[in-house]
């Protein structure tokens, strides 16, 4: 099996998939803790559906480089969703649900009405579950992904202490002179970028899993923000690598995205068990 794996690594598309998969997993796990604690676990879901809708619009309008449409639309939605947060009339979860299913419906509608491809349901399935797109990456896409990931990780490190303050206690932070609004905006933009990146890997239905599972697993066992963040980043990278390798080796062509999520789930139960035992001892 090891020989088989080494054999596969000869192919550039396998190497690309591993690089991109690991980078995306790393980025998406970083903000997981913040999102879970801010009660925004589902924002990943909502935003990815927005991205799906934007992609459909781009396809219908015949725009070849659809990133130019998807990225700004998703960023704007993220900003709007996180802004309304606590004091809006429509509460966070309802707003996310509304935008999420709304965008999904419009996207699917547009794709069917103005269909340019002969296999609409296949296209939809690919965008929702990311079934093959990660194995068909071009070199340019890989570079875009590497650059964006580096920016995300760098931004996270620079703003780490501020993200902590704003997540733990936004009122205290603003009262003592931290510009919470600005940092919430930065968090929203980083999330949007991560989600657009991650659509390639797991598709828009499974992104939330990539964001939440590593954070939740780490939170079972570790007790400080720093250790939870580091642990969830490591977990996410390991799970993504394992998932991609398993899906390549598996005989019946297991889809990459759902294999990664399955590994994440297994790891979550292992960590849950460790946490459970630790508390008992």
């Amino acid at each position: 099996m090891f020989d088989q794996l080494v054999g596969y690594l000869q192919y550039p598309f396998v190497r690309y998939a591993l690089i991109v998969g690991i980078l995306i997993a790393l980025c998406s796990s970083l903000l997981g803790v913040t999102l879970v604690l801010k009660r925004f676990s589902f924002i990943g879901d909502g935003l990815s559906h927005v991205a799906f809708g934007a992609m459909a619009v781009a396809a219908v309008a015949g725009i070849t480089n659809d990133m130019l449409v998807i990225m700004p639309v998703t960023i704007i939605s993220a900003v709007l969703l996180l802004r309304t947060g606590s004091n809006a009339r429509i509460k966070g979860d309802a707003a996310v649900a509304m935008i999420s299913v709304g965008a999904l419906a419009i996207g699917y509608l547009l794709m069917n009405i103005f269909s340019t491809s002969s296999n609409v349901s296949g296209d939809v399935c690919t965008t929702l579950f990311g079934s093959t797109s990660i194995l068909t990456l071009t070199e340019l896409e890989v570079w875009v992904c590497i650059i964006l990931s580096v920016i995300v990780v760098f931004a996270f490190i620079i703003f780490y202490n501020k993200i902590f303050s704003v997540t733990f206690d936004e009122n205290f932070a603003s009262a003592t002179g931290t510009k919470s609004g600005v940092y919430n905006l930065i968090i929203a933009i980083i999330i949007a970028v991560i989600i657009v990146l991650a659509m390639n890997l797991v598709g828009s239905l499974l992104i939330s899993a990539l964001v939440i599972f590593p954070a939740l697993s780490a939170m079972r066992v570790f007790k400080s923000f720093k250790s939870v963040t580091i642990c969830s980043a490591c977990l996410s990278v390991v799970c993504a690598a394992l998932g991609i390798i398993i899906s390549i080796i598996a005989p019946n062509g297991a889809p990459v995205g759902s294999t990664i999520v399955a590994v994440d789930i297994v790891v979550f139960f292992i960590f849950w068990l460790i946490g459970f035992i630790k508390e008992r001892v």
Partner: protein
Amino acid sequence: MAQLSCQNLTLGYEGKEILSGLSFEVNSGDYLCIVGENGSGKSTLMRTVLGLKKPMSGKVVTGDGLSANEIGYLPQQTLVQRDFPASVREIVISGNQGRCGLRPFYNKSEKQLALENMKKMGIEDLKNRCYRELSGGQQQRVLLARALCATRKMLLLDEPVAGLDPKVTADMYSLIDGLNKKDKITIIMISHDLDAALRYASHILHIGSDIFFGTRDEYLKSRFGAERGLV
């Protein structure tokens, strides 16, 4: 000049007035208790003083060397904090964040300050413990140490003893009293506990359908004091 003065404030939510014509002053070293029924606008007043909310009219002015973001704040616990994975040290040091500006990491003197304040609150040996596993009284001490990192001049406390048992409550009050008397920190405290307010405070602000502001003795002589049979 007063450290904090509120001039003719009108407070409310979404255009609905809940309190108007409120004026009071707090001087350095004062211990002010804000009392009043539920819904009388105590928390709204606190949010306004902290600059989290704009008053509908009137203004809040800081002076005597106090700037608006130098007010330490002990909030009521939020839901988020109850399952937040954070160590005591991480939380206390985050009190310095306001001073950091764009600087990404804490410097030496800020780390030192966090350590000193943990010592002062008697939680130094808990510094690597997880916040959510501490008792209610310990958690309040952690948040108080964080507030002390943000200020050396004025603390705003929002019901600091809510949900604590009588012994821990007494400890908390004497801790706060010590900060006021020994460290000369101005205290503004929202409280439901009028007895404690009268024991420790130098000034009382009573808000509600009619407003009273004055020293503790004036309050006892006023009709509020008479109502409680305290004269």
